[in-house]
């Protein structure tokens, strides 16, 4: 029986991804200056992104009678062919690993389209309620050491921030079942790409044996 705390875990054995990372990394270089893909609206004067990640704000979200809107500032790339092509290429590189029947990652069930982050983009604290009880595997490529994963550790009753490293990062987490929640968000001060894979629902033993590392 593995104890699974509500929070983020480092992934182990990420060498499996090294070829894919190398290929995707090369493609990122061909995209050129990533600022050309930033199509976000300007941040309003006086708006403090960090204010979205406070306990006070989280309490207001918890207290709301239904799910409130997640406050976010994100780019889209549905009109941008180089990023559309890159999303397809990079996803296929990673999915090759998740789709290998003998890979420890072969339990992956679905994939979410790639996210692109530009300076001052963020996703406020949210509960991914539609994936309750699922393990999620995240890969993030960050251009700099200023991509933060922010989440609520219920057992410590605190908001925790983990800053990822430049380059590729792997982490995973289990969304709690029942009425429990794992509120989480992200913020980025430079550029990043994110890929999310739903590993599965009844795969705790498998994941804890093969993929899950230390709690972040």
């Amino acid at each position: 029986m593995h104890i699974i705390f509500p929070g983020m875990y480092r992934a182990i054995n990420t060498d499996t991804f090294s070829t894919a990372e190398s290929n995707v990394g090369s493609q990122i270089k061909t995209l050129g200056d990533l600022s050309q893909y930033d199509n976000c609206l300007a941040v309003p004067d006086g708006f403090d992104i960090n204010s979205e990640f406070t306990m006070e704000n989280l309490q207001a979200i918890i207290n709301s009678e239904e799910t409130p809107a997640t406050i976010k500032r994100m780019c889209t790339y549905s009109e941008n062919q180089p990023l559309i092509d890159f999303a397809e290429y990079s996803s296929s590189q990673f999915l090759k690993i998740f789709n290998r029947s003998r890979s420890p990652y072969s339990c992956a069930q679905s994939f979410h389209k790639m996210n692109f982050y530009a300076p001052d983009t963020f996703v406020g604290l949210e509960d991914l309620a539609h994936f309750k009880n699922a393990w999620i595997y995240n890969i993030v490529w960050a251009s700099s050491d200023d991509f933060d994963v922010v989440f609520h550790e219920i057992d410590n009753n605190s908001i925790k921030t983990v800053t990822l490293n430049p380059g590729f990062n792997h982490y995973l987490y289990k969304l709690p079942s029942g009425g429990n929640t794992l509120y989480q968000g992200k913020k980025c001060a430079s550029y990043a790409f994110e890929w999310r894979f739903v590993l599965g629902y009844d795969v705790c033993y498998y994941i804890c044996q093969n993929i899950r590392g230390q709690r972040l």
Partner: protein
Amino acid sequence: MIVEKTSYKLKEWLEDKLSTRLTPLLDSLNLISGFSIENDNNEYYTSREFLNQVKESYKFKNTKFLTSNLNSKLRTTKGLPIEAREKFLNVISDFIDENTQFKKHFCQTTGAMIYPKNGYMGWHNNSKTGWRLYCTYCAEEAKSYFRYEDGDGRLVDSEERQGWNFRLFFIRDNLTPLWHSIYTESERVALGTYLGRDLAKIQDIIGDKQ
């Protein structure tokens, strides 16, 4: 990127072109059927007083007035049948493909509904950031408007006339919402279509501010 909080007309000759295509479809679908509700101070949901309530509630993550997609819970609309939605989207996305740099397959229906006479939709923002082409059809000449709050905090009424009305506006992220609401004393069909984010791609169709 800086986008003004405002609403634009379609260029006049394009209004005629799109009307000509939408009218036979509207007629064939028999959507106008005398749908009406009581007027019990219904315009309140487009008032400054109600906007202030919605804003205050939104600020504190309260979901009394807005859904998680920032749609209004205070509305009197009925959704159009799927077949009608698809047919309208086909006509509108063809038009967009022909006249802008946005592609047909990027166009998405974000709303396809009918308002009763005396109907309304309370203040809201919607959630998918980017340009909307908003086509509405008023069955009769009567008070009907799209009201929004501009960048200076003023309420602006974009009034509608009998027949087709077209406008383009940019749905903003929820840091700086484009608060808008609707009131109509005419039975009214409303078709919202998401186009994309790039203003340069609709330069050929964008008309005056309204």
